[in-house]
């Protein structure tokens, strides 16, 4: 069965979650365009999740995003609707496209809805038992020819395949958050895999405009394999500094350096909050269970969760409080587990002391935002990091240590065989994490 045929009946399990809703959007739009080009076909997208509230939120999200897509792709829509005499204006075509996207969507709370699906995406919470349970049920419900793509970010796919009895029909297909925006799909091919499934996965990525980076089936793969170690380095730095400078100051300093000195889109603790402290802990525990890596653990993460500080996002996409409290998406206070409260940044007080302690930024014209579309990015990064290398401020020292740890984590993934080539790790960090440069570089 070709991809086009399989797209006629697709299901997403865990559709209302952050990753599931993005994957659902990509598929819903893909199916709407397919249905417009192939007017004879019947297309169904079954979106399955556990709560009505979540599914309603998902439908609202799909409508709102489909509207934006239609407005952006109006030239394409005018071509597709050229033979519809009743649709004359852009506005009419935009409304019709939104209608088309929603037309093929079914929602429900039971896996039976996936019965006729030719292709099933799974994006449930990253828990072994949960995913295995879902796949065992799907194995019963779905036909023998159904293929399964699992948006798993840490659990080995061979393990899931074996436990659920889906060997040969399941593939790791790891989108990055948010799936509708990030260009990366990490592809994990287990030992047994139908060549037709592999070909289909590659073709689908092309259709969705995604770049595939292959990773080997070792827990955490490339993305989390790097992110967990990168996060733990940040926590280690906080623990190293906090004796001298205080905990909240150390968190603020390490976050600021990992963002503004390393020119990343977010500081490391903001990123952990974005992903969710609970998810961070969960991924660490999954990785420990499947590979011998006792060092993938953090007392601080456990403590935060014990105190109910979880991060993550609300269903509307707003950032919840975690390491930081946020106002308009920006960190404004740090959670102090000793005092069990947030300590607000005092621009004239302790925040200023942190700035003084870090020393001047090596070049304030350099930022992630400023360099994003710069054609001379590589040369500018090289010049920038040579200043970082020569400076003896604490900020530059922390940046050098951070870059070295990030590089070591990346090289370890290549040494462990998780990534075939250094370039693959770099691609995951640039495409999936929006970094300006890969961790394996000669800047420092």
């Amino acid at each position, binding site marked *: 069965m070709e991809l086009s045929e399989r797209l006629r009946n697709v299901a997403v399990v865990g559709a209302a979650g952050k990753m599931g809703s993005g994957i659902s959007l990509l598929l819903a739009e893909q199916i709407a365009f397919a249905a417009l080009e192939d007017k004879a076909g019947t297309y169904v997208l079954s979106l399955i999740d556990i709560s009505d509230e979540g599914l309603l939120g998902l439908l609202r999200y799909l409508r709102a995003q489909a509207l934006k897509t239609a407005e952006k792709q109006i030239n394409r829509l*005018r071509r597709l609707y050229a033979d519809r005499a009743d649709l004359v*204006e852009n*506005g009419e075509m935009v409304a019709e496209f939104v209608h088309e996207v929603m037309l093929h969507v079914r929602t429900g709370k039971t896996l039976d809805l996936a019965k006729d699906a030719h292709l099933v995406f799974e994006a449930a919470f990253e828990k072994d038992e949960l995913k295995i349970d879902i796949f065992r049920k799907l194995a019963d419900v779905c036909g023998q020819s159904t293929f399964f793509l699992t948006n798993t970010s840490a659990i080995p796919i061979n393990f899931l395949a074996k436990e659920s009895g889906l060997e040969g029909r399941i593939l790791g297909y790891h989108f990055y958050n948010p799936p509708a925006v990030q260009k990366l799909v990490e592809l994990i091919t287990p030992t047994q895999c139908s060549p037709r499934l592999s070909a289909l996965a590659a073709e689908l990525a092309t259709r969705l405009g995604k770049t595939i980076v292959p990773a080997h089936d070792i827990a955490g793969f490339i993305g989390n394999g790097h992110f967990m170690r990168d996060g733990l380095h940040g926590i280690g730095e906080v623990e190293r500094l906090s004796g001298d400078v205080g905990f909240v100051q150390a968190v603020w300093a390490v976050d600021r350096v990992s963002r503004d000195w390393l020119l990343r889109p977010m500081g490391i603790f903001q990123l952990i909050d974005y992903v969710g402290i609970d998810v961070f802990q969960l991924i660490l525990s999954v990785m420990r269970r499947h590979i011998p890596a006792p060092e993938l653990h953090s007392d601080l993460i456990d403590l935060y969760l014990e105190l109910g500080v979880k991060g993550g996002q609300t269903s509307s996409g707003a950032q919840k409080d975690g390491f930081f409290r946020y106002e308009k998406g920006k960190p404004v206070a740090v959670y102090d587990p000793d005092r069990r409260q947030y300590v607000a940044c005092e621009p004239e007080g302790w925040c200023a002391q942190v700035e003084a302690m870090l020393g001047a930024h090596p070049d304030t014209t350099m930022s992630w935002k400023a360099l994003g579309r710069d054609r001379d990015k590589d040369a500018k990064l090289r010049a920038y990091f040579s200043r970082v290398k020569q400076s003896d401020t604490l900020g530059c020292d922390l940046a050098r240590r951070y870059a070295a740890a990030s590089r070591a984590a990346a090289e370890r993934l290549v040494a462990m065989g998780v990534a075939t080539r250094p370039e693959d790790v770099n691609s995951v960090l640039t495409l999936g994490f929006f970094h300006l440069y890969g961790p394996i570089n000669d800047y420092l």
Partner: protein
Amino acid sequence: MKALRKPVYLAAGANTVSMGTGRKEFDPRKTRPGLEHYINEAVRAVLAQVSNADLVDEGVIANFMAARFNRQGNLASLLAAAHPALRYKPMVRVEGACGTGGLGLVTAIKTVLAELADVVLVVGVEVQNTVKAVYGADILAGAGHYASQRKGGHAYFFPAKFSDRAGAYFTRYGGERTRKAMAAWYANAIGNARLNPLAQEYHNTTPDLVKVGMSKPNPESFTEHLNLFDCSKVSDGAAALLVCSEEGLAKLGLGRDAAVQVAGYGQVVDDLVQAPPDLTTLTTSRKAVEGALGQAGIDVSEVGVFEVHDCFTITGILAVEALGLAQPGEGPDLVSAGGIGRGGAYPTNTSGGLIGYGHPTGASGVRMAVDLWKQLVGRAEGFQIPVAKPYGLLISMGGDDRTVVSMALRR
């Protein structure tokens, strides 16, 4: 063509800010002021310049598409809401697409010539940011022949029409030099807008304007030959002035030096249903200019300052050719050499034009007349140039060179 039977003057002009993207205070997510805000601001600024607002005999409101942008009709009556002195007087709304403002001026001039009034208020207004550009394109497409052209037309209907003109011009006269001239036009427009606090691009700080103007067009997201910088703005704004007889000026307490005289105008249309006869020429605009210069009895060389309808950079280049400032195919050379710049032989769009000031469609023709009045009477402040010759000339154009007014003003 007949000469005007008696002197007619323009005075007491006022423009509002052209609001939209580019202005620091513009936030598309927030509720914004509507039609009345702009009408009221422009009208009150005009009436504040005269001794007695009750002396206004009649009013003309020039608006293109409020019925769709703002779901508002009956604008003649809305005009009376701007000032108590306007109630129970004759008011009329005129429409001629983006040439609406020009028609508003002409309507008022005719009323004065007919000796039905000594003082006629002319207001142009458009509030377009009520919808996103993708939907605004549908509304503006009403300036073409909707029934026969909208369905087969481009998503961005008018940008594509003028992209086709640019393509034809490139083929006939050379793409590279024309593209450079289009970028030069953009740079001149923004440079002028930076001198005009009312301009939508007043806050523009882009360092290399020519480089931006040279951006490669993206046919998938927009049009084949035009980039977004080649286009005029989506704008909210109004412009107003008084059209007066000699007696009217005297009654208002305005001296001759506070007014400009209408030396002549040309107003012509071409068939909306037909395609333009030659994509590389603004045939109708040329006829309107000939009418204006002929009625004024002057040559274009006597004009010291110009306002042209640069809805797109290519239209600006075609307009200088329609004015006779350059031979067909030589407009790009004149523009690239700075001929239309503030210090050039033919200073054009000194307050920013449609690309720099903005293009509240129905208001633009009136806005041009106000800015020419400001230049000729020495009230242009930040964008004032020393106008070396006695005349100013405008082209107010509707649709794809379909409904056009050209007007010569004398200080």
